């Protein structure tokens, strides 16, 4: 396992498209880092730069202390799990698992041993002689993972490996991935567009937008102290409410934005901030109440209310927010302000 350093790496394509602005990122050895962001933010590009499938326009990449910027993918000793798994369709599962080792002319006995070990770990023993076309989605995903594991590389690169699975399988696969990481203690760089996946998997989460990193921090920090309004609204579902600070009757300079997560909003029968219930989305255990604030702009506001008896549509309620659950952001750039 190796640490990865990204120094001032940028990528502009020949047609002028800027995919990555100069960014720095230090990934510790053995860490599970998630790159998350909306589509087009550059997370997959960054992963491909790490893999060597693309070359940065500027900056350097070092893996395990070695500068790999000028090296092709073959020389970097990394393993990649693709979104489509990219299993070799004309080879058996065994062939797929063994390929990376055979290409490096590993001793055949070592190959057999490692393939068997990985097959056992991922429960692929019965499938070794099948072709990818004969496997289910979940089985293919495991083979893709196994192909990476067999090589014992310096780091794993995973490009949305769970997005092709059924939602039910996805949760299970997530748990298995976490277990795997704990067992292998190998560096993993994981790309996803799903913020919930990022939060549950990552040791640290890097939120990207338009080719730049907005924030890198452990999931709870990103959730509790988002560094700007973009991160605040991207992480957490339903998204954080953002309204002018004055609305929430906060004594703050004009032009500031106040943010509060729907889960931190309580609906009470009396208070200073009135709102009308627009409609309610029952989620079983709780409900998402869509409100309209009693403000000049009738700003929409979300609250998550526990229990099965939310206020009915059309009713009037009062909004109460605990002061320590309030986030303040600068009105112009959306940057987090200290209280």
């Amino acid at each position, binding site marked *: 396992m190796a640490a990865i350093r990204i120094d001032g790496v940028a990528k502009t394509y020949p*047609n002028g498209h800027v995919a990555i602005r100069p960014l720095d990122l230090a990934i510790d050895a053995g860490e599970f880092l998630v790159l998350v962001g909306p589509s087009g933010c550059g997370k997959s590009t960054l992963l491909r730069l790490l893999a060597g*499938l*693309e*070359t940065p326009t500027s900056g350097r990449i070092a893996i395990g202390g070695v500068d790999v910027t*000028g*090296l*092709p*993918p073959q*020389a970097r000793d990394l393993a990649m799990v693709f979104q489509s798994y990219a299993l070799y369709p004309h080879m058996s599962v065994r062939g797929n698992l063994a390929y990376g080792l055979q290409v490096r002319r590993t001793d055949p006995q070592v190959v057999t041993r490692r393939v068997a070990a990985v097959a056992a770990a991922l429960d692929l023993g019965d499938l070794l002689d099948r072709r990818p076309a004969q496997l289910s989605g979940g089985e293919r995903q495991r083979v893709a993972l196994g192909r990476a594991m067999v090589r014992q590389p310096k780091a794993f690169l995973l490009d949305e490996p769970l997005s092709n699975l059924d939602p039910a399988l996805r949760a299970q696969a997530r748990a298995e991935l976490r277990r795997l990481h704990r067992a292998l203690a190998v560096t993993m760089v994981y790309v996803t567009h799903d913020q919930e996946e990022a939060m549950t998997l990552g040791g640290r989460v890097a939120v990207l937008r338009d080719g730049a990193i907005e924030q890198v921090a452990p999931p709870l920090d990103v959730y509790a102290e988002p560094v700007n309004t973009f991160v605040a609204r991207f992480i957490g579902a339903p998204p954080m409410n953002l309204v002018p600070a004055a609305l929430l009757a906060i004594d703050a300079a004009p032009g500031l934005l106040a943010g509060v997560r729907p889960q931190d909003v309580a609906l009470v029968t009396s208070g200073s901030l009135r709102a009308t219930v627009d409609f309610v989305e029952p989620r079983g255990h709780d409900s998402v109440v869509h409100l309209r604030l009693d403000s000049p702009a009738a700003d929409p506001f979300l609250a998550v209310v526990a229990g099965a008896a939310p206020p009915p549509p059309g009713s009037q309620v009062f909004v109460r927010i605990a002061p320590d659950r309030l986030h303040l952001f600068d009105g112009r750039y959306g940057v987090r302000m200290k209280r």
Partner: protein
Amino acid sequence: MNRDMTIEREERRLARWFVAPALAFIVLGSLVPIAATGWEALYGHDLRLPWLGRPFVGLSNFVEAAADPRFRSALLHTAIFALITVPLELALGLALALMMHTAIRGRPLFRLAVLLPWAIPTVIGALIWRFMFDARAGVITAALQSVGAASESFDWFAHPLAAWVPIGAADIWKTTPFVAILLLAGLQTIDPALHEAARMDGAGSVRRFATITLPLLRPALVVAAAFRMLDALRLFDVAYVTTAGGPGTSTETLSLYAFVALMQRLRFGYGSALSVAIFLLTFAFALVWVRALGRSLIGDRT
């Protein structure tokens, strides 16, 4: 492993080697010869009169061609032929493609009917059509006679205008399948959901065809039209085999005339000038079309 052999650099390096053989054939097999033809056109070179040598004559071959009535009629023949057969081929090909696209049963029969004429060598097809139009044994002549539409032993090939019919028939028969396949590809890329939505809106099949199918098929139609026009301008095989340009020279196409000048009269200088003229004609036409074509063929990859 070399230092600084990034993936892009390796791709560029490999590309040079991979592309080289094809490029060599293209350059040596067509670009150099075309230039050589242009060069040859500037000389008087009659293989039957070798003692005259090969003097430089400048543009006099071209001047001769411009004034040559036989060249002018060949040009006229070719242009009119193209303007008549290409729309016919497009229409028939479209009809065929639509049938193949919507057919529920009988698809293999359609495929067969489409692929056989296309696969049969052009000259073979032309010979069959010539046989069918033959005055004595031709089944078409016989059929028309039995309906009373033609007189006794009407010889298509003796009539300057009628002789074009067998040529046209052979050409359209052979090339409509190709057009149909191209258009079928285009039809298959049209999202059926569009038609379903239109049907729910109450649009009949004619209206749907006009407002959904035709506009979305435009790129494929443009491609098919361009290829067919180019082929029609270069027409040789069918004309040679069906009528050999006859009666006289009334069905002579441009390529046929150039061939006669080159290989029968062995006037290489003049024949080269004719070839250059044909080349410039098709090149000019291709330039106009390539703008429309290029975008659909190269695709929108970055």
